[in-house]
C-alpha cells in the first residue's frame, strides 16, 4: 500500500495504541495534520506547546502509557524543551513529534528552523531526525519502545516537511532492532539472596521507595514485601501512592520537607532498601551525614544510579516489579525456615512513637486567614478518590504531605526538574487519560499563571478538572527562603491576591470560578466544585501568605538538623514587617 510519510505516521501511532495526542499545528508539521482528520487518534488542541508537552506527561503518569505531544518546527519544538527536560528528570515516557523544515534547506537558517535534535540531545532519552520516509515507521516504533521500556523517558522524533509528504510503501516492522539498547530487567538471583540476608540481619530496616516502583507498576509486590517482612516504608515525592499512607508501616515522605518519622527513620536505620529511588539531594540532605549507620541495598533499572551518590552494599539492577517480587519470595521462604520475621518490635515501636509525637501540624484560626494545609486537607476529605496533580513549591509540599494517598498513579507532579506551571496542563492530560476519575490540580498562584491558558483547552475539548489555587499572593517557597535565610529581605516575590481575579479569569475561559476567603467558606466551595462535572472549575483559596512549609531540612544541612516548626526558627526581624497583602 502506498502512503505518504504523514499517513504512515498516524498508522504507526495507531499501531502503537495511541488514542490521544496533545499538540499545536504549524507550517512544518502541516502535512501530518491532514491525515489526522481521518485517523482514530484524538488530537487535543492545546494553547501552548509547553502545555501539550506537560499534558502528554500527565497522561503518561496517570495511565502508565506513553504520552504523545506534537508541535511544529522552530519555536514549536523549542517550547517542548521544558516538558522534555521534565520528563527526562522524572523518567516519564513521552514521545514528541516535531515538524522540521524540508531536508534541502535544513542547516540554512530557514524560516522556523531550529536544530531541535541538537537542542534536546541532553534532555531526551534519545532523539531522531528522520531524513527518509522509508525509515519513518521503524523510527516511530523504536521511539515508543525506547520511551516505555527500561528506565522510561522522553523521545523526540523530528520529521522534515518533505519527508512527511514523501510516498512510501507501508510496512510495519515486526521487531525493533536496537543493538545498543538492551535494558537489564531481570534481577540477579544471587544478589537477591544477598539482599535478603542483609534484610534478615538488620534490626532497623527501612524500605526507601522511589518513583521506579510506580513506573514499574510494582505497588502490589511492594505491599507484600513490606507486610510479610514487617518492613517500614518511606515513599518519596515521586512515589506517593506506591504504599498506602494509612498503613501502620507507612512513615510518609522523606526529605527536605518530609515527615519527622520518615526522615529520622532513614537517619537511624541500619539498612536502607532503595527501590527505584536515586538518593536525590532533596532526600538525602547533606550526603556525608545521611543515614550514617545504614547498609544499602540498591534496586534500580538504571545501573548508572547505583553507586552514583551512595555506595551500595548489595546492588541489584532490574525492573522493580521483578526484583521486588523475587525479594519477597526469597524473604518469605527464609522467614518460614526461621519461623517468622526477626523481632524488630523495639524499632517499630520507636517509629510509631515518632509518628505520634511529631505529626504534621498546623493551626487554623477560626477567624482566618485560610491556612493552605487546611484547604488541602478539606479537599482530601471531600475527594479522597481523586487523582491529584501539583505544580512546584509550597503548595506541592503541602499537597504531598496532607493528601493521604492509597493507590499508585493518583499523585502527579514535577519532582526532579521542579517545573512551575506543570499542574494545569498535566491535569488536562491526566483527565484525558482517565475520564473515569476526578482530577484535581492543586496549584500555586505563581505556577497557575505560567500555563493557565490550557483551561481554554479544557473547555473546548471538554476535558474537565478542578484547579485549586493555593493563592498566597506570593512566590511562596522563595518567600519562605528569604524569610528564613535572607533576613526577611523580600525580593521580587509578591504577586498580589487580586491580580488577576482568578475566578473571573476562570469564567473567561469557560470554567466555573469559585472563591474561598474565610475558613468557614472552604467546605461549601469544595462541595460546589465537586458538584460540577461538565466543566472545569477553578477555586481561588485566599490563603495566609506567612504560612511556611515544615518540617524543613535547610539545603545542604544534615537530616539530623530537621526543623519541625516555626518555633525552632529564630526570626531575624519582626514578621509583621513582611510585605504581605
Amino acid at each position: 500500500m502506498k502512503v505518504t510519510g504523514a499517513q504512515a505516521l498516524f498508522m504507526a501511532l495507531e499501531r502503537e495504541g495511541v488514542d490521544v495526542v496533545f499538540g499545536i499545528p504549524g507550517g512544518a508539521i502541516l502535512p501530518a495534520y491532514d491525515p489526522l482528520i481521518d485517523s482514530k487518534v484524538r488530537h487535543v488542541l492545546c494553547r501552548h506547546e509547553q502545555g501539550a508537552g506537560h499534558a502528554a506527561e500527565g497522561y503518561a503518569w496517570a495511565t502508565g502509557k506513553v504520552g504523545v505531544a506534537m508541535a511544529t518546527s522552530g519555536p514549536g519544538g523549542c517550547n517542548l524543551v521544558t516538558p522534555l527536560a521534565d520528563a527526562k528528570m522524572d523518567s516519564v515516557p513521552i514521545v514528541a513529534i516535531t515538524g522540521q523544515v524540508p531536508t534541502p534547506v535544513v542547516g540554512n537558517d530557514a524560516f522556523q528552523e531550529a536544530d531541535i535534535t541538537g537542542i534536546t540531545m541532553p534532555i531526551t532519552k534519545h532523539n531522531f531526525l528522520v531524513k527518509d520516509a522509508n525509515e519513518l515507521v521503524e523510527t516511530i516504533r523504536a521511539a515508543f519502545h525506547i520511551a516505555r521500556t527500561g528506565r522510561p523517558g522522553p523521545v523526540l522524533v523530528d520529521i522534515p516537511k518533505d519527508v512527511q509528504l514523501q510516498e512510501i510503501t507501508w510496512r510495519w516492522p515486526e521487531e525493533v532492532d536496537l543493538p545498543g539498547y538492551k535494558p537489564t530487567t531481570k534481577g540477579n538471583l544471587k544478589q537477591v539472596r544477598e539482599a535478603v540476608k542483609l534484610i534478615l540481619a538488620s534490626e532497623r530496616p527501612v524500605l526507601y521507595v522511589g518513583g521506579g516502583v510506580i513506573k514499574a507498576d510494582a505497588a502490589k509486590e511492594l505491599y507484600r514485601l513490606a507486610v510479610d517482612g514487617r518492613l517500614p516504608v518511606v515513599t518519596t515525592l515521586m512515589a506517593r501512592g506506591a504504599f498506602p499512607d494509612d498503613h501502620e508501616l507507612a512513615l510518609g515522605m522523606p526529605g527536605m520537607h518530609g515527615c519527622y518519622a520518615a526522615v529520622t527513620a532513614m537517619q537511624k536505620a541500619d539498612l536502607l532498601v532503595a527501590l527505584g529511588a536515586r538518593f536525590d539531594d532533596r532526600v538525602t540532605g547533606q550526603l556525608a551525614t545521611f543515614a550514617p549507620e545504614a547498609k544499602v541495598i540498591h534496586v534500580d533499572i538504571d545501573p548508572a544510579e547505583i553507586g552514583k551518590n551512595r555506595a551500595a552494599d548489595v546492588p541489584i539492577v532490574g525492573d522493580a516489579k521483578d526484583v521486588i517480587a523475587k525479594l519477597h519470595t526469597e524473604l518469605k521462604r527464609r522467614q518460614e525456615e526461621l519461623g517468622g520475621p526477626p523481632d524488630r518490635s523495639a524499632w517499630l515501636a520507636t517509629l510509631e512513637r515518632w509518628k505520634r509525637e511529631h505529626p504534621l501540624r498546623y493551626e487554623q484560626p477560626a477567624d482566618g486567614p485560610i491556612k493552605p494545609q487546611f484547604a488541602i486537607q478539606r479537599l482530601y476529605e471531600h475527594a479522597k478518590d481523586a487523582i491529584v496533580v501539583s505544580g512546584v513549591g509550597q503548595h506541592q509540599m503541602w499537597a504531598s504531605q496532607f493528601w493521604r494517598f492509597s493507590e499508585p498513579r493518583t499523585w502527579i507532579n514535577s519532582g526532579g526538574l521542579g517545573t512551575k506551571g506543570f499542574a494545569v496542563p498535566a491535569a488536562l492530560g491526566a483527565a484525558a487519560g482517565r475520564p473515569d476519575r476526578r482530577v484535581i490540580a492543586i496549584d500555586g498562584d505563581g505556577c497557575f499563571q505560567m500555563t493557565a491558558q490550557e483551561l481554554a483547552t479544557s473547555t473546548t475539548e471538554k476535558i474537565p478538572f478542578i484547579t485549586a489555587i493555593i493563592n498566597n499572593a506570593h512566590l511562596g517557597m522563595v518567600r519562605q527562603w528569604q524569610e528564613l535565610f535572607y533576613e526577611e529581605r523580600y525580593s521580587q516575590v509578591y504577586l498580589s491576591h487580586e491580580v488577576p481575579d482568578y475566578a473571573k479569569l476562570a469564567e473567561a475561559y469557560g470554567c466555573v470560578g469559585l472563591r474561598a476567603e474565610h475558613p468557614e467558606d472552604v467546605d461549601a466551595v469544595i462541595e460546589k466544585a465537586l458538584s460540577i462535572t461538565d466543566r472545569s472549575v477553578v477555586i481561588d483559596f485566599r490563603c495566609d501568605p506567612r504560612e511556611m512549609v515544615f518540617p524543613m531540612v535547610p539545603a545542604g544541612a544534615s537530616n539530623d538538623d530537621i526543623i519541625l516548626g516555626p518555633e525552632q526558627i529564630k526570626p531575624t526581624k519582626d514578621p509583621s514587617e513582611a510585605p504581605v497583602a
Partner: protein
Amino acid sequence: MNGNGNGRRLHTISVLVEDKPGVLTRVAGLFAARGFNIDSLAVGPTAEPGLSRMTIVVQVDRKPLEQVVKQLNKLINVIKIVELEPGEAVERELMLVKVRAEGETRARVLEICDVFRVRVLDVTHKTLTIEGTGTPEKLQALLELLRDFGIVELARTGRIALARGDVGIRDRGRRLKAVGERGPEWTGGGV
C-alpha cells in the same frame, strides 16, 4: 598528556558505536555535561559495516570514570565499552611535526629521527616535516627533543588502541571492565 600525581590517571576507553548522525555529539556532549575533559578522541570505521570505534582518553578518578562509562552505556547508539588497561593493550598515535632545521642543526634533527625510527615527509631550506608513529610515550619523548630546535606546527591523531590477545571487543564478556567492579549485578547495555 601523561598521567601524573593528584590521584588521577589517564584512562583509555574503547567505545563501539553505531555509525549514526550525531553519535559523536552525543558522546562528546555527555563528557562535557558531566564535566570531564577529553584528553584525546579518535574515531573511525571498524571492520563491521555500520559500526565505528571511538578511542577516548580521559584523565579522571576511578569513581567518576565508572559513572561516565555507565552514562555512556545508556546512549542508545553505544553498543559496547571497554576500558583498556595500559599493560593489556597496544596503543599507537601518529603525529606530524614541522620543526626548524637550518644549517648545522639539520644533521642533529635527522640524527634524532634516525634514533626514533621516524620518517621525514617534507624538506625545505628552513624546516623538516616529520611523521612520528608509536606509543604516546615515545612521541612525547621525541617532541621533547625536537622542541629545542623550534616547532613550527604540530598535528596529532590522538591515541588508538586495541586489547592484546585473540578476542575482539564484541567477544569480551558482557561485563564491562570499567563498571563491573562491584559484582555480577550488571549484565546488559542500555537503560
